[in-house]
C-alpha cells in the first residue's frame, strides 16, 4: 500500500509546497471571491430583505467563478515544463496522482473560500444559524467543482484559447451543484430543512470522486498525444 501512496503523497506535498512558494497566485483567487461578493450590495442597493434573499446565490456564484479562475493553472505549468510527461510514465495508476493534484488544488483554492464565506455572509445579514449550512454546502460542493473542473482543464490542455473554452465546457456542468448548494441555504431559511440538498451534494461528491479522476486521466493521455 505504501507503494501506491508514494506518488500520491509526493504529488500532494509538492503541489502544496508550490502553492506556498507562489502564494500571491492563491491570494488572487480569494481576493476575487471577496470582491465579487462585495460588489453585489453596491449593485442591488442596501435593501436588507433583498440582500438576505440573494445572499446564498451570490456566494455560490462567486465561489463558482473564482474556482473557474484558477482551474487553468491546475495542469498548465506541469504540461509546459514536461513534468506531466514524467507523471504519465509513472508505473502507478494515473487516477491516483490526479486525485492528489485535485486535492492539493482544492486545499489551496477551495478551502479558503469555504472559510471566508461565513464572514462575507454577514455582509448580507444572513441569519447566524444558516451559516453552518452555508459552510457545509460549500465544503461538499466546492470539491465537486474542482473535480469536474479538472476534467475540463485536462481536456482543454494545450489548446489555443483554452481558458475560455474551459469556462464554456465546465460552467454548464456546475449548474446542478449551484442549484443544490444555494438551495440548501434557501430551504434552511425557509424552514423546510437542508438535509435533502446536503445529501444530494454528498452523493454528487462521492460520484465525482469515483468517476472524475479516471475521466481526467484519460483526457490527460489524449492531451499528450
Amino acid at each position: 500500500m505504501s507503494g501506491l501512496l508514494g506518488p500520491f503523497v509526493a504529488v500532494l506535498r509538492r503541489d502544496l509546497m508550490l502553492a506556498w512558494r507562489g502564494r500571491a497566485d492563491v491570494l488572487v483567487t480569494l481576493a476575487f471571491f471577496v470582491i465579487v461578493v462585495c460588489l453585489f450590495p453596491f449593485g442591488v442597493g442596501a435593501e436588507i430583505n433583498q440582500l438576505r434573499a440573494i445572499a446564498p446565490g451570490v456566494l455560490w456564484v462567486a465561489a463558482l467563478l473564482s474556482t473557474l479562475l484558477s482551474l487553468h493553472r491546475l495542469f498548465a505549468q506541469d504540461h509546459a515544463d514536461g513534468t506531466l510527461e514524467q507523471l504519465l510514465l509513472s508505473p502507478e495508476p494515473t487516477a491516483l496522482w490526479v486525485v492528489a493534484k485535485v486535492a492539493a488544488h482544492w486545499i489551496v483554492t477551495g478551502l479558503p473560500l469555504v472559510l471566508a464565506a461565513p464572514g462575507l455572509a454577514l455582509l448580507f445579514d444572513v441569519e447566524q444559524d444558516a451559516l453552518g449550512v452555508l459552510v457545509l454546502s460549500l465544503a461538499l460542493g466546492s470539491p465537486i467543482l474542482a473535480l469536474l473542473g479538472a476534467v475540463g482543464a485536462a481536456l482543454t490542455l494545450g489548446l489555443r484559447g483554452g481558458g475560455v473554452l474551459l469556462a464554456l465546457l465546465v460552467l454548464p456542468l456546475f449548474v446542478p451543484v449551484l442549484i443544490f448548494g444555494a438551495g440548501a441555504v434557501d430551504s434552511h431559511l425557509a424552514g423546510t430543512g437542508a438535509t435533502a440538498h446536503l445529501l444530494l451534494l454528498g452523493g454528487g461528491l462521492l460520484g465525482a470522486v469515483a468517476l472524475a479522476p479516471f475521466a481526467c486521466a484519460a483526457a490527460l493521455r489524449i492531451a499528450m498525444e
Partner: protein
Amino acid sequence: MLEANDLACLKGDRLLFRGLDLRVVPGEMVRVAGPNGVGKTSLLRILCGLALQEYGEVRWHGVDTRRDRESFHRALFYLGHAPALNDLLTPLENLRFACRAGGDAVSEAACIDALGRIGLAAQRDLPARVLSQGQRRRVGLARLFLAAQRPLWVLDEPFTALDVRAVADLAATLSAHCEAGGCVVLTTHQDAPFERPPAVLDLAGVAC
C-alpha cells in the same frame, strides 16, 4: 528486449515514417538518426507510450506495451526535450519528486549523492530558475544515477547544452549501463565519444 514492428507515425495529416522495425537487445545502444523533422522525437514518444502510433506495435519482452503498461513503465526511464523542472523548487526537491512520483523509493542521501556526481553539489539548494540551460539538463540527467534498476533508457537529445566534460561523462555512464545489460535508445546530432559506437537507425530510410 524492446521490439517495434512495422511502426507508422502520423503527425497531423502527414505521414512521417512507415514500416519501421526496431530491435534493441540487452546490452545494446541504438542511436536514432536523421535530419530535423523526420520523426525522431515522435518515434521515442511512441516507444515510451506517450504517443499513439498509426500502425504497428511496440513490445517489451514480447508483450505489447499497451497491454501491460505498468510493468513496462516500471522498466523505462525517459528523458524528453523538457527537463521536467519546476522553477520554484530546488534541484534536490525536483529530483526527489521525480523519483518518488515515478514510483522509486529513493532516500534523500541518494538524491544528494546523484546531484554531486552530476556536478551540481553547489547548486543543490538554489531555486531551479537561476540555473543555466546546461545545469537544468544535468538535473534531469541526475536521475540516471538513480534509475540503474530500470533496464530501458530512452533519451531524447541528452547531450544538448552540456559542456565537453559532461558529454564525456554521460557517454561513459550510458556505455556502463549497456555493459551491465541495459538498453539505451537515444537521439543526438553530436558525435559523442562512446567507447563502442552505437548501432544507428536512420529514419531517412523509412521516411515518407
